[in-house]
């Protein structure tokens, strides 16, 4: 067989992309999906893509999901790459989650509390039975009294904090670290850590949070409060000098109340882990709160024994856009590195072969994985 150097990479790429577009569309006799349908009917997917793509825009997230054929990490990547090109014209004021227009609010530590327990639109307590009626296109049953949002409810730190039983909110006017504008360095402050977790991979955060519950850095968590609802986003334009509302976002906030700390001199109080996510994302917010608390181990004088307590391990690994890129880059050609390894192994074998029957010595250094 004659050797022909592979040429025409450009034509191959174009053809592959055309094929991809056809595969994305699928069977042409099935109606094409509208992004509005994705936005309205696949809301949890949209929320996840907005969180991991770090951009609150349900329409663009829906577009990204459509473009990525429902691959949510790919969709998050599309949104992230778009986000990075956007100009920044203002910074919002901190949002006030106490003023949230609640769709859901539960506490696991008090049977009742001001503002009450509001179940809201939750999968909790559903029986996980496939609902075959969804195979048919039937109009949805009316939800009971939609729009009956309960009034603002105080947050759990506002309740427990009064007695000093729970560590206070950190109040600071300092400019927060911005992981999208400055390289993350370790040790990282809590502001940088929370930003990294807020857009970390939901599955990875879930696994790490779960690992703390299974003994790898346990921090005795209670869901102090979990709330979902809309908050106003306000900015102060320089030419006005007062705050104006520029829109609303749906957020999920989790206040985890954890293992108390104290000493003979310091009165004991509960510590906190915090989770906040775009959209309705309870699993993400709770996992984030568990990991946030685990990452505070050093600050709180706890023994550092578990992966979830190691900021570099967690933050440098949790970003799924980075992770998927580097894992999938193994598909790129590595002929040159592999060739150099081939020559090394052949050389080593030639040397080792001079001793009869000599294999690699026990405990031989394993070859480095390809970069």
């Amino acid at each position, binding site marked *: *067989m004659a*050797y022909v*150097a*592979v*040429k*025409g*990479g*450009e034509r*191959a*790429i174009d053809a592959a992309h055309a094929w991809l577009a056809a595969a994305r569309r699928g069977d042409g006799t099935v109606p094409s999906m509208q992004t509005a349908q994705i936005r309205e009917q696949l809301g949890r997917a949209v929320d996840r893509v907005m969180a991991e793509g770090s951009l609150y825009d349900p329409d663009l997230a829906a577009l990204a999901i459509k473009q990525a054929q429902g691959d949510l990490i790919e969709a998050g*990547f599309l949104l*992230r*790459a778009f*986000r*990075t*090109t956007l100009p920044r014209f203002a910074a919002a004021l901190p949002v006030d989650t106490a003023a949230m227009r609640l769709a859901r609010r539960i506490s696991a530590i008090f049977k009742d509390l001001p503002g009450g327990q509001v179940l809201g639109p939750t999968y909790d307590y559903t029986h996980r039975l496939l609902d075959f009626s969804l195979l048919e296109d039937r109009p949805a049953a009316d939800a009971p009294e939609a729009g009956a949002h309960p009034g603002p409810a105080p947050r759990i730190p506002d309740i427990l904090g009064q007695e000093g039983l729970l560590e206070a909110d950190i109040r600071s006017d300092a400019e927060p670290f911005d992981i*999208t*504008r*400055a*390289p*993350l*360095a*370790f*040790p990282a402050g809590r502001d940088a850590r929370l930003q990294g977790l807020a857009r970390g991979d939901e599955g990875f955060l879930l696994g790490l949070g779960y690992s703390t519950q299974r003994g790898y850095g346990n921090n005795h968590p209670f869901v102090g409060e979990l709330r979902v609802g809309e908050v106003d986003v306000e900015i102060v334009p320089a030419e006005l000098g007062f705050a104006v509302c520029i829109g609303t976002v749906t957020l999920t906030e989790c206040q985890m109340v954890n293992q108390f700390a104290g000493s003979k001199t310091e009165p004991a109080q509960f510590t906190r882990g915090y989770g906040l996510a775009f959209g309705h994302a309870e699993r993400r917010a709770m996992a984030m709160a568990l990991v946030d608390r685990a990452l505070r181990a050093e600050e709180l004088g706890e023994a550092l024994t578990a992966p979830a307590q190691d900021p*570099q391990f967690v933050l440098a690994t949790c970003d799924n*856009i*980075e992770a*998927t*890129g*580097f*894992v*999938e*880059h193994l598909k*790129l*050609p*590595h*002929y*040159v*590195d592999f*060739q*150099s*390894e*081939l*020559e*090394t192994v052949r*050389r*080593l074998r030639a*040397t*080792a072969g001079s001793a009869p029957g000599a294999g690699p*010595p026990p*405990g*031989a*250094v394993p*070859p*480095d994985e*390809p*970069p």
Partner: protein
Amino acid sequence: MKGYNFAYLDEQTKRMLRRALLKAVAIPGHQIPFAAREMPLPYGWGTGGIQVTAAVLGRCDTLKVIDQGADDTTNAVSIRRFFARTAGVATTTRTAHATIIQTRHRIPETALTEAQIIVYQVPQPEPLYRLEPSRTETRRMHALSEYGAMHVRLYEQVARYGQIAISYDYPVMVNGRHLMAPSPIPAFDNPKMHRMPALQLFGAGREKRIYAVPPYTDVASLDFEDYPFRAGRAPHACALCGAQASYLDEVVTDDRGGRMFVCSDTDYCASRREQAP
């Protein structure tokens, strides 16, 4: 390209990159953190190199992009197209014609000149990461030039295998001060870095680090007096151009053990064949 700045990145981002590059040139081999941006190509596929190239690219530049030494590998094609599209610059496959060469895993066989810049794509800028995963700790080791652990690693290989067994990304000392990862080029290419007339820039996007080797800087591959550095290549001549000293790719030609060896540097190989009588 409509809607995007020249070479994709906005000028503020390029300025941030250039500041990091200037620092990197001032301290050869030292890793400078920079605020890497999300690029429209995946992390691990050359985003660091692309950002560095975007920061140094001008309208009059001629760009060459290689992956594994070849201009026609798909990722090289993709990156070359990216700049042709976003910057409209001239591109070439000829090493001698390029003013900027972005590369993954190779240094061209043709010697580079003072008029050229070579930009390396770097997956892992920290040469010590297999020995010490904590970046807080490796930063301290670099600050103190505490590189004994790497020498111990080489020594362990000599003790076990009778020789140093690192094939690529072979660690180098730059300017007698900083231990540096040359990126996963084969050890064969390491000697080309030593006192190279061209400016060498390194970009690691995912790890958010930039480093550099200025022209005519000493770059020494780590070794021992009694176990000197050896640059390995397949002991063959190129089946296409007959080159005796170029780095070779091994091509499997059948399922009965058939092999042929051809230059990994496609431009070098093609040029030699053109010049051949």
